């Protein structure tokens, strides 16, 4: 088994960019990457967005996304340079020898065709199997991947299975034609932690059983540590470090790798609750109009001044709905919200300007939370103008102060949101809510859309600001690592109910209820063999199954 399956040498990839107002120009986005992959092995490609990991993954199928071109180097698959192969040869390669699993299964399956037809399509088209044999193989793969009712699940349409199941169906699709190499492009990133673990396990076992080699692309080092043999760390199209999993995780050589390994290690001491909470949610029950079930059931939580309450749960647990109720966007059916010693009107329309000012919100997608046609100065300046009546130089001075506070500076004042990076956008959103001098900021998954290192920066900034401004955070997240980093108290939500609530140390110490245990154990840890350990000790199946 010493023959190399995939050999990449000095791979260079270029792209054409179109800067507004300037002539389009060509840039290089991958600068000479080399690696080897032997049959049956798994190589993890890791890096932040823009590192070029997906681009490299697709290059191993001799494919470049729109506007991207492979400009140099060699990619050898099974002893031939596929970059020099003709179109017919490449066509045999794709979907035959090399297959691809994309990040969003939901967006990759054709919603109008049954799963089975899509899973066996490549095998049949390539003439590897007859339709009957391919179907039998698909059922076998469904079984191996732990899908329920493997004989019949192929007859369903993509919308009739859950996200985690669909992701496993796509893995079956990729494995069906008996490829030599599968490219996994962030296959678990879009899933809940408790579902991610099942998919990871299924992928790992399928790789082991079929003896296929894999390129596993992800931004999460803890995930890649569970499935890979080797890891290649990338940054801005450059190779940073290339070594075995053991070496990368336990003895990283480069500073950048060390930063990735030690991400999520913010230390935060739990503060003790004060006597007077700034926000008190009492017996809140809510449902959306036109539905007949409660999304929130009798929620009771408190938030103390200058502290952070983390609301944790999977998608669909009702945590964002709680934010909508508190902000007044969704008046509850029952229950009260006390805020700063007064009763808050249930509906947004009944709240005073002071109520609105003291209760601010930051969104998950900073992109859509800012008007693309307003400059940073206008975005941050509007609350100043609106709540405090600041004008002219006074307003400008305060905007500059806020920009300094979020570590950005005056130079950003006249920029538009599209001219900022993801982390900078989120910082501007933070500054906008701080401008109102709020008592509480509701943070709805504010770091979920960001790269780990950038997210770390945002969390640190939020903690620093909390000390300076004495603002309380209601922090909604599905990521327990984030919770550990910043929370003072925690409310765990499951199917519309708070199943566990209290100080951080209490909530995170045993004995656990089954759901909290599942949630806690599902957070990938930066150590080898973690996946097997967790699977062996689980008490409860995840909801996605």
């Amino acid at each position: 088994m010493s023959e190399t399956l995939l050999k990449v040498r000095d791979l260079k990839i270029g792209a054409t960019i179109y800067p507004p107002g300037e002539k389009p120009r060509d840039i290089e986005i991958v600068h000479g990457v080399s690696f080897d992959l032997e049959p049956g092995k798994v190589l993890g490609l890791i890096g932040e967005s823009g590192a070029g990991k997906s681009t490299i993954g697709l290059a191993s199928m001799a494919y470049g996304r729109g506007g991207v071109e492979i400009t140099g180097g060699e990619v050898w698959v099974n002893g031939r340079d596929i970059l020099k192969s003709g179109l017919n040869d490449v066509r045999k390669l794709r979907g035959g020898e090399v297959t691809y699993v994309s990040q969003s299964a939901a967006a990759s399956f054709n919603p109008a065709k049954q799963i089975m037809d899509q899973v066996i399509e490549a095998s049949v088209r390539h003439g590897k199997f007859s339709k009957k044999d391919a179907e039998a193989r698909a059922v076998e793969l469904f079984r191996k991947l732990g899908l329920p009712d493997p004989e019949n699940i192929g007859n369903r349409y993509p919308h009739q299975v859950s996200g985690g199941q669909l992701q496993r169906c796509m893995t079956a699709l990729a494995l069906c034609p008996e490829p030599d190499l599968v490219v996994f492009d962030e296959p678990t990133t879009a899933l809940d932690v408790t579902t991610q673990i099942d998919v990871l396990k299924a992928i790992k076992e399928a790789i082991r059983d079929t003896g296929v080699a894999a390129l596993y692309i992800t931004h999460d080092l803890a995930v890649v540590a569970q499935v890979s043999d080797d890891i290649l760390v990338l940054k801005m199209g450059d190779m940073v470090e290339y070594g075995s999993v053991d070496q990368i995780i336990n003895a990283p050589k480069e500073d950048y790798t060390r930063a990735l390994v030690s991400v999520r290690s913010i230390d935060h001491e739990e503060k003790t609750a004060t006597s007077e909470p700034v926000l008190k949610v009492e017996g809140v029950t809510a449902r959306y109009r036109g539905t007949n079930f409660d999304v929130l059931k009798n929620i009771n939580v408190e938030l103390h001044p200058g502290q952070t309450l983390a609301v944790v749960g999977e998608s669909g647990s009702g945590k964002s709905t709680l934010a909508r109720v508190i902000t007044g966007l969704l008046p509850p059916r029952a229950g009260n919200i006390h805020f700063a010693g007064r009763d808050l009107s249930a509906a947004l329309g009944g709240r005073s300007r002071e109520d609105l000012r003291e209760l601010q919100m930051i969104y998950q997608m900073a992109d859509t939370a800012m008007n693309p046609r307003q400059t940073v100065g206008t975005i941050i300046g509007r609350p100043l103008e609106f709540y405090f009546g600041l004008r002219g130089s006074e307003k400008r001075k305060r905007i500059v102060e806020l920009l300094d506070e979020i570590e950005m500076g005056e130079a950003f004042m006249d920029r538009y949101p599209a001219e900022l990076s993801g982390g900078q956008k989120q910082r501007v959103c933070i500054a906008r809510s701080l401008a109102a001098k709020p008592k509480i900021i509701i943070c709805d998954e504010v770091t979920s859309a960001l790269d780990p290192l950038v997210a770390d920066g945002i969390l640190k900034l939020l903690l620093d600001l909390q000390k300076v401004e004495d603002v309380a955070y209601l922090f909604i997240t599905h990521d327990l690592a984030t919770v550990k980093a910043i929370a003072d108290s925690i409310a765990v939500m499951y199917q519309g109910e708070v199943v566990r609530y209290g100080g951080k140390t209490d909530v995170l110490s045993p004995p656990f209820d089954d759901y909290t245990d599942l949630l806690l154990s599902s957070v990938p840890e930066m150590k080898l063999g973690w996946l097997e350990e967790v699977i062996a000790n689980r008490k409860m199946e995840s909801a996605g199954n």
Partner: protein
Amino acid sequence: MKNLPIAAVVGLFFTSLYFLMAIFAPLIAPYGVAEIVGGVWEPSSKEHLLGTDNIGRDLLSRMIYGGRTTIWIATAATILSFTTGSILGFAAAVIGGWVDQVMSRFVDLIMSIPTLIFALVVLSVVPVTVPILIIVMGFLDSTRVYRLARAVAVDINVMDYVEAAKLRGEGRVWVIFREILPNALSPLVAEMGLRFIFAVLFVSTLSFLGLGVQPPEADWGGIVKENKDGIVYGIGAALYPAVAIATLAISVNLVADWVLNRTTSLKGGRG
């Protein structure tokens, strides 16, 4: 303005040519609009570049004054339809509920009647003056603009930044004019180019039918009507306004396309 595409240059040139001619008509036109200066349907000559019309008026002067009337009516009607249509459309999207229902169903009602027939009925009972013409055309066209503006605004209204503005306590006026309008401009500008040309065609049609601009005032549709009989004798006087309408239509839309390309840039419309 350095990298102006060639299509935009052509469009800008002809559009400004027509508009300048419209504005400075009395200074440019060699003769008065109703002045009879020669014989019937004289061919083009040094004195009369485009010849004369069916009763001996200078056709070039008629075309220039006609363009002034046509462009003025179409412009005013377009502005009227876009201000009312888009503001009402945005308001319907933002306010929602029964306000939206009432306005939208009313617009459906108006749109179910063919525009030309509706205009003919209205103009046959009220005196036909330029302001009336503008109001009728603007009103009829605003239903189309309303539909578009509402559809665009409904999409924008659910964006997080609009929700953020509502949570801040902003009033509807701010939400409509500062959050929604700047982001809805691109499709509206594209539509505006098209609607302006429809307005030109519409006023020309009305005049051709005798319910638009009344003689002796000139307008392009009227000139076609006056000279249409000449076509049988091989006299092309009626074709000049047709050519003018066609070139104006193309050039205005070239400009609209260019503006659209500029404003859809992700850089907040500066690119």
